[in-house]
């Protein structure tokens, strides 16, 4: 800043006494006043700082926020490209086309989808209604506004053709996705299947489905979208990632992770008061947590395996109380609770409590903590979150970052997405303890009455069913989470059927059926 230098130079001179040299308008001869040079320097400094602030602001938007904003589906360049550019194809992991572009009679592109089964994950891209799902998440890549390669992105101004529409190869398996939607049938619900070793999502199904091709086709777009918007079953809600459900007993796996992980219990811990409490209820702060008695277990105090096998609420309430609200909330946080899961698609946050309570971890009191420990109270989860819980156990305590894309393929080359460890949640041997309990729940003699349907011929399955009471008189939500093969897990699953009844009746059989189909697909 020259101005500073020069003005400072002026300071010394300007500040020097100027006896006998009064100004026009100076009040008294001989009075000293510094020249304006001194203050000019400070004013110059002020402006220099202000312009430095402008440079920093520009740097923030043009460097730090550049990728984020410029590839956003709301960006004008992305929207403009979406109207003119034929978007890249979307395929499943084996190359089966899921979405592709056609040209209307005016030569303008529009989108076509292989089936409605993928509507909950691929979404739609419509000229009139924008986009949703994967179409929205990778708007910039599909329309080629941003190249997948950051170096290519930087120098794209030197290329003649500005856009490079990329094809996306997803991690999905089209036939399993189709099967999951068929298995859910007319029910509202969701299925998530993922590879626990890599985080690759194999199935991300949400019902009811909708005809995304009808939304995308300019001829039918208006009518189709209007019907979908007014449908009380909300087909446009992607339930697998954004549906928030009371988990019921499948949440016990989270409680087990917190209990074992924090050292509050071991796999061998038993609670002497548990058998009696099954008859009379467990007195927690003057409130009785009740559970049906499990006749087959008699009056034995159950350990982790036994309690998981018969899905004992009292045992898990005691584990939760032993662990404490803070530890339960923080271990759940390790698994992804409390904030939207970082994923290709927009996700909703799962919660163990609605928070604000002073008891610890946001719980309001011991009763809420006890109830939350077996998945009631204010606990709500997304199907994706519960699939990650099962996947963490299956992958021996290591939580992989879930992802939906294997590769972006454009003119500028192919960019593959590598598996990433998200968090090391639990020690491997502790994860193995829980895996053994989950295996017993499906394969054990007593567990069968809860999760019989999840069994697959020729392959050991580990899992946990859940029956989430919703209050009132409605049917409970039916849950199943699990993984297989139990001895060397390669697939994790979460199934929820809204008001599907007991977990054993609806969700567990769907889980078993899909795991069997997966087994065939995987060639086991």
């Amino acid at each position, binding site marked *: 800043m020259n101005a500073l230098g020069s003005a400072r*130079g002026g300071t010394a001179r300007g500040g020097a006494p100027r006896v006998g040299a009064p100004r026009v308008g100076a009040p008294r001869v001989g009075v000293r006043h510094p020249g304006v040079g001194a203050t000019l320097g400070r004013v110059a400094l002020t402006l220099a700082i202000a312009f430095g602030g402008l440079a920093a602001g520009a740097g923030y938007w043009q460097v730090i926020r550049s990728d984020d904003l410029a590839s956003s589906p709301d960006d*004008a360049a992305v929207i403009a490209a979406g109207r003119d550019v034929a978007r890249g194809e979307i395929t499943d992991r084996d190359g089966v086309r899921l979405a592709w572009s056609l040209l209307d009679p005016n030569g303008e592109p529009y989108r076509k989808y292989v089936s409605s089964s993928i509507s909950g994950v691929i979404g739609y891209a419509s000229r009139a209604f924008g986009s949703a799902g994967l179409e929205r998440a990778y708007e910039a890549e599909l329309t080629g506004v941003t190249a997948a390669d950051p170096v290519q992105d930087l120098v794209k101004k030197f290329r003649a053709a500005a856009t490079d529409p990329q094809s996306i190869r997803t991690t999905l398996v089209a036939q399993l996705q189709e099967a999951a939607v068929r298995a859910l049938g007319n029910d509202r619900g969701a299925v998530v299947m993922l590879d626990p070793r890599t985080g690759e999502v194999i199935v991300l199904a949400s019902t009811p489905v909708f005809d995304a091709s009808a939304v995308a086709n300019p001829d039918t777009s208006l009518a189709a979208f209007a019907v979908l918007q007014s449908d009380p079953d909300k087909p446009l809600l992607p339930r697998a990632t954004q549906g928030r459900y009371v988990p019921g007993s499948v949440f016990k796996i989270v409680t087990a992770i917190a209990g074992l992980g924090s050292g509050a219990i071991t796999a061998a811990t038993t609670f002497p008061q548990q058998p009696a409490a099954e008859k009379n209820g467990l007195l927690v702060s003057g409130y009785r947590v009740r559970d049906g008695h499990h006749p087959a277990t008699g009056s034995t105090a159950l350990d982790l395996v036994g309690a998981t096998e018969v899905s004992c609420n009292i045992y898990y309430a005691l584990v939760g109380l032993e662990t404490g609200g803070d530890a339960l909330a923080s271990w759940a946080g390790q698994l992804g609770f409390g904030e939207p899961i970082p994923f290709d698609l927009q996700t909703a946050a799962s919660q163990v409590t609605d928070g604000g309570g002073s008891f610890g971890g946001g719980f309001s009191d011991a009763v809420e903590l006890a109830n939350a420990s077996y998945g009631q109270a204010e606990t709500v989860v997304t199907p994706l979150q519960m699939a990650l819980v099962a996947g963490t156990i299956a992958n021996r305590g290591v939580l992989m970052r879930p992802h939906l894309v294997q590769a972006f393929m454009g003119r500028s080359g192919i960019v593959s997405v590598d598996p990433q460890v998200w968090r090391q949640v639990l020690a491997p041997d502790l994860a193995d303890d829980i895996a053994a309990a989950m295996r017993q729940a499906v394969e054990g003699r007593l567990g069968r009455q809860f999760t019989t349907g999840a069994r697959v011929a020729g392959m050991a399955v580990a899992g946990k069913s859940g029956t989430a009471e919703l209050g009132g008189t409605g049917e409970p939500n039916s849950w199943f989470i699990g993984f297989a093969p139990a001895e060397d897990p390669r697939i994790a699953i979460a199934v929820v059927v809204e008001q599907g009844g007991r977990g054993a009746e609806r969700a567990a059989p769907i889980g078993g059926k899909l795991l069997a189909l997966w087994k065939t697909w995987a060639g086991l």
Partner: protein
Amino acid sequence: MTAVVPMNDVPMNDGPMNPLPITGLDPHARRGGHAHLPRPRPRPREFGLLAIVTATLLLGSASLAATRAFGGTIAPGLDRGLLADGPALLGYLASLFAAHILLILSGRRTDQVLLPTIGLLGGVSLLLMERLPQTLAGGLGLGRTQLVWLALSILAIAVIGTIVRSDAWLRMYKYTWAAIGVGLLLITFVFGHDVNGQRLTLGIGPVSGQPSELIKILLVVFLAGYLSENRALLIEESTKIGPIRLPPIPYLAPMIAMWAIALAIVVIQKDLGAALLFFAVFLLLLYVATARASFVVLGLIAFLVGGAVLYAFLPHVQVRVDIWLDPFATASGSGYQIVQALHAFARGGLLGTGLGAGLPMIGGALPIPALHTDFPFAALGEEMGLVGILGILGLYLVVIERGLRIAASAADDFRAILAAGLSLIIGVQAFIIAAGNLKLIPLTGITLPFISYGGSSLLASGLIVGLLIALSDRTAELPAVTGSAQRSLRRRQNRGSA
């Protein structure tokens, strides 16, 4: 040798030893330029810088033409060629060199950096206006209309830099100028017509303009006159309220009144940007003249209180502030323009999309409707990237630096404060609109000097830079002490000796 004589050549603030300078009384000395033609004085530095500016702009125009040639869109009425709208650019360059020659012929030893700096800013503006939809302005189209105003502005710089050899006409009639300013505001408020909900434009027959562009200069002229005359009093005297020492309120009264009237009317006109500009320049000049931080503190308190009151009672202020706090909340409503501007910056990234390759059109419309007036900074951010933005900011800093340098080496307080005020107008105005574009402060609709589209703004900015160049001539004599100044001097001397 620079145009501005380095300060060690002539001591700064080396005012006349005598309060009644003898040369100032000689009318022929003051109008020396008119008596016979001055000897031309070469301006080698200005020429060199103008050559660089020419090369830069030709390169930019060729880049824009290349973008068009390789599949980009082309504005209607323009051809593909080696240069994007070559005749316009050549016309612009011709006006720059004509101004250069005029300044050579003036024979004055004046600043040689300002003209090329302004020339580059204006050239960037021309390139931008050429690549925008030409229908944004009627008649000649956006680019050609901007060319005409730019050329007039450049010419105004040269003419004022040549012929203004005395500042007596400014300093002697400060209250007259202030009155004209207030009058212009009132006339605009009564007879002006509304554009975009703001009553800023005054039309006389076919000619229309925004008087607030002129008013900001009149304000600075008034402040320079008043502050230089009362500087010593403002520094020395205080109003004591109990133990608290406050600035001499009686001497501030005329200025505060001037400022309050301007501000009130500006607020009524909903021109927040001009209000902010007036206030910031007012405070900075007060500080320049008095070096009293207490003025700045009081001013900032007044600003905060006033801002809170305006926010509480004026819906359009609330909307502006709310948009600023979270534009993304209303991204498709009131926050639309600023969100689009931020996206434009983001698309530009480090290196930019290249001239002509940014600003995607959706349905034949620009993402930002008021791009050419309120958001040229965002447009440049997209097409020239962070690198280009830093360059533009650097050019404004050069203008500020030259202006403050002229102020620091001015012959007396009036010229110093005037030069500082004029350069502060350019600097603060550029800051306010750029910061608004970048969401650093609430967005206000004022122009980016020498870049935004608009005749009033370009002419006013040309007037400012022309005056700065004239003020940089330190051989120009100081005018005689005016009657009123003499009276006030006598008054104070009497009191001082009492």
